């Protein structure tokens, strides 16, 4: 049974109610500059529910030790929690085996891991395909690889709406394509990419596919077997978990064939001064003391999110996006950047006559946290002819009232600046 079918069959799912959800996130009750906190920056990092905070605290207060090899109660306890977190991740993304779940310090490290290890199997003239809306973390590792071994980096152009069409991807694919590395969802625009179709098209030319799932996994159920992706990378902190933890899912046969990423403890089975042998998966890719407590915290975050029907969370966020888009469009001189048909709850925009940084500073004084800048996607900003945008991104705990606070604060900002 797939994880989705499993979840749908579950009868003990919590009913999604935003007020009750808000009650789970202690930080949301604080004020900023004497105004209620209006946190609209979840695409950068999401806030944490009490259960995640409690899980982290509990580990440090009651069960902390290093994992693996410790022949004593505390180490064995935390080792089993660490491995249980891996199993939680496996179920969440419906991987076939927990050998396919590698813990990293974040999604950036997960992508760099693939570039540094799988990348070694590529040679001069081989092509790596990315799209025009990638985050720097899915651009720069491939540039480093290019400089190292002469691969050719191909970029699929985006449409004026900020979409990536399947045909645009297909026109770049060829027998030379060895890897396609694309975002599931654009962090700067919210565009949802047709990844299932892209994966299938890439496989048709024999290429391997890496999905940067940082934004995607937060907004829709991910089933790596159904997608048939070869790698799927994501971070914990955008999924309501702690920072310092990320996940690389990789198909077992690929991970098996790849050389280790870093050398050190944990990733070996035998070491002499002449040579070393590698540990089994996934330990082969987890050199050194891993982010133990963050992994347990990520497990708690997934338990929290998976306690709801993910479709209910998505429907709530879709409603926020629709409302925010309407309200923003009703303001004069607003230009929405990224108007894809399929979008997550991200509103990126510029306001004529007001620079995003000035807007963000003024919004902050109304307690509104938004991001202003290039969102680590400078090439994407260039393609829209802007250097920066304001980005309001919504999480499961945001409300329509908070959209109103944003709109009012924008009105005030415009009074001051324009």
């Amino acid at each position: 049974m797939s994880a989705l079918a499993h979840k749908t069959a579950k009868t003990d799912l919590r009913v999604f109610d935003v007020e009750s959800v808000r009650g789970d996130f202690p930080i949301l009750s604080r004020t900023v500059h004497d105004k209620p906190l209006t946190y609209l920056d979840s695409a950068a990092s999401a806030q944490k529910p009490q259960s995640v905070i409690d899980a982290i605290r509990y580990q440090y207060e009651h069960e902390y030790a290093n994992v693996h090899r410790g022949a004593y109660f505390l180490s064995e306890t935390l080792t089993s929690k660490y491995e249980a977190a891996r199993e939680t991740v496996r179920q969440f993304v419906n991987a076939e085996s927990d050998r396919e779940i590698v813990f990293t310090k974040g999604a950036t490290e997960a992508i760099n891991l693939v570039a540094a290890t799988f990348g070694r199997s590529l040679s001069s003239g081989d092509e790596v395909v990315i799209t025009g809306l990638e985050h720097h973390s899915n651009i720069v590792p491939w540039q480093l690889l290019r400089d190292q071994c002469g691969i050719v980096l191909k970029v699929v152009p985006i449409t004026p709406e900020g979409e990536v069409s399947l045909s645009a991807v297909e026109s770049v694919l060829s027998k030379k394509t060895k890897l396609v590395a694309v975002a599931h969802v654009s962090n700067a625009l919210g565009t949802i990419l047709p990844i299932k179709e892209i994966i299938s098209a890439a496989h048709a030319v024999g290429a391997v596919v890496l999905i940067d799932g940082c934004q995607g996994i937060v907004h829709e159920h991910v089933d790596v077997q159904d997608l048939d992706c070869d790698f799927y990378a994501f971070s914990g902190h955008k999924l309501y978990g702690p920072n310092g933890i990320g996940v690389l899912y990789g198909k077992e046969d690929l991970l098996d064939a790849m050389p280790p990423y870093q050398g050190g403890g944990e990733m070996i089975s035998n070491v002499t001064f002449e040579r070393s042998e590698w540990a089994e998966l996934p330990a082969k890719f987890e050199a050194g003391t891993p982010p133990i407590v963050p992994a347990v915290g990520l497990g708690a975050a997934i338990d929290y999110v998976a306690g709801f029907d993910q479709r209910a969370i998505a429907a709530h966020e879709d409603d926020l996006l629709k409302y925010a888009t309407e309200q923003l469009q009703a303001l004069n001189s607003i230009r929405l950047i990224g108007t894809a048909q399929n979008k997550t709850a991200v509103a990126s925009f510029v306001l004529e006559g007001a620079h995003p940084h000035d807007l963000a500073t003024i919004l902050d004084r109304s307690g509104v946290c938004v991001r202003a800048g290039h969102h680590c996607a400078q090439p994407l900003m260039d393609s829209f002819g802007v250097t920066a945008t304001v980005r309001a991104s919504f999480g499961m705990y945001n409300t329509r009232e908070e959209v109103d606070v944003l709109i009012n604060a924008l009105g005030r900002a415009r009074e001051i600046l324009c």
Partner: protein
Amino acid sequence: MQTAEKDRDILSLYQEIILDHGKSPRNAGTVERHDCRSEGKNPLCGDRVTVTAALDDDGRVADLKFDGKGCAISIASASMMTEAVKGLTAEEAKVMTGAVNTLCREVTSPDAIMEELGDELGPRLKRLSALSGVRQFPARVKCANLPWHTLISCLDGAGNVSTEG
């Protein structure tokens, strides 16, 4: 702090003179026959400014222009800078830059900074005193400073600068 006071912070940051220079920058462009040129950028936010200057026979700034993209604070600071340093030597421009940095960061009153600068530079700084509004906004100090750092590297012939360097 009360709400009205918070609003005062914002209004002291975005004073009329800042908004005016931000919207209608003076000396925008490039000095065609320049003696030195430097580009400054803030890699975190993408703001960038290019400063070009022509010097006279005594080594004084005869013409100074800037070209850039950025927020109201950085553009206003650049625009006000082009007016404030014309006629100064590189050494004097450095002193002014230090004074602007103090003006943006420290609690020293603008009057005290002006007094310390003396009769030649003091009145020039007075015209920049609106920049002190960034004191309440630590994240924005680098916006005000970027053009000035770029000016110094331009006059030193050092090439490019970055506020994150």
